[in-house]
């Protein structure tokens, strides 16, 4: 009995001290991290719509993979120039969180990955400019992942097929949502032309 006490007490002491250290660190760093993340988000939004002159305002929330995400309207002197949506797609080992911005012509302006936990060295290759730049200027119907050379669609990164699929699906869902919300004029015009 006495022995048990002698063995466990130092262990308990270490656990308690370590716990206190972790809590204190968390308390100290939380406000700083919260602020940094907020500024980063604002900057990221601004990057998505560089031609917006007014502050980018949240326009509502939508759901993808059963999780709520926000979308935003970017305006320049009152006129809408772009709509931006937060979105996510299921990659190989994580949900890849992204921002997608759509011009008023309902074509993709930019795609930016915010957060992901894909395999270092393989899945994280989707972060490379070459892959993400493929989305620029594409319309909803073109967002299809292809395993091979393509100019019209999206070419998957070899060695990162699942992650490429995650990005593509996330982008596609976001574009579909934004087109349904804001694209009424554009789709109608397109249908007029094809008739």
């Amino acid at each position, binding site marked *: 009995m006495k022995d048990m006490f002698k063995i466990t007490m*130092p262990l308990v002491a*270490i656990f308690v001290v370590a716990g206190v250290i972790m809590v204190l*660190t968390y308390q100290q*760093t939380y406000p700083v991290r919260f602020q940094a993340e907020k500024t*980063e988000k604002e900057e990221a939004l601004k990057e998505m719509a560089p031609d917006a002159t007014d502050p980018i305002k949240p326009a509502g929330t939508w759901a993808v993979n059963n999780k709520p995400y926000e979308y935003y309207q970017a305006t320049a002197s009152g006129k809408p120039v772009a709509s931006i949506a937060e979105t996510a797609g299921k990659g190989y080992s994580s949900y890849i969180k992204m921002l997608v911005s759509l011009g008023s012509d309902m074509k993709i302006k930019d795609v930016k990955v915010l957060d992901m936990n894909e395999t270092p*060295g393989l899945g994280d290759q989707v972060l490379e400019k070459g892959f993400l730049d493929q989305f620029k200027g594409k319309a909803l119907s073109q967002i299809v992942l292809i395993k091979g050379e393509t100019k019209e669609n999206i070419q998957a990164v070899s*060695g990162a097929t699942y992650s490429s699929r995650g990005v593509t699906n996330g982008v596609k869902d976001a574009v579909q949502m934004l087109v349904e919300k804001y694209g009424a004029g554009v789709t109608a015009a397109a249908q007029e032309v094809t008739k």
Partner: protein
Amino acid sequence: MSNNVSLGTLFKNGVFGENPVFRLALSLCPAVAVTSGVYNGFLMGIAVLFVMTMTNVTVSLLRNFINPKVRIPSYVFITATWVTVIDLVMSAYQRGMYKQMGLYIQLIVAFAIILSRAEMFASKNKLLPSFVDGVGMGAGFTLSLMLLGFFREILGKGSIWGIDILHAKPLLIAIMPTGGFFAMGLVMGGLNFLDRRFFGGTGASSGGH
């Protein structure tokens, strides 16, 4: 290892004599997992260097306090604490670096090499030698990962440190997990060969434990 070994020898022991990856053959799992490029290996190595040094120092300071019967949970908890602290501090104050290294830091808790150095060295040695051992082993680990990353990146991506050199991908499998095992075996064998041939060593079996 007794206390009269000079600190320089101790450092060199970590890098060469008991190199964590190629000699002790510990923490091979991360060594295969993240060495698809030189830069990844470097980041992982530096993160390990930090955590290992901190853990070694803490374990060395507490070595008379920790009951030998429960030493393993104590070491793991000390490592976990340092990993959490570094993770939190970095995510708040070093955002740029955290975005690159955040992935790797949390993995370190479970690394065999850190537990092994706490058990084999820090728990039996004074503060300063334990510190040097942590830095030396960390440096050895970093260099090993970079060496593996070098071979895998040049073969699999045709680049070094992210800079395209070959403008081709001669052997894509090198950056796949399978290629990691091949690279590990071949590099370890190559180093053993060099060691036997030119330095009179006996290969990885001379690791000491």
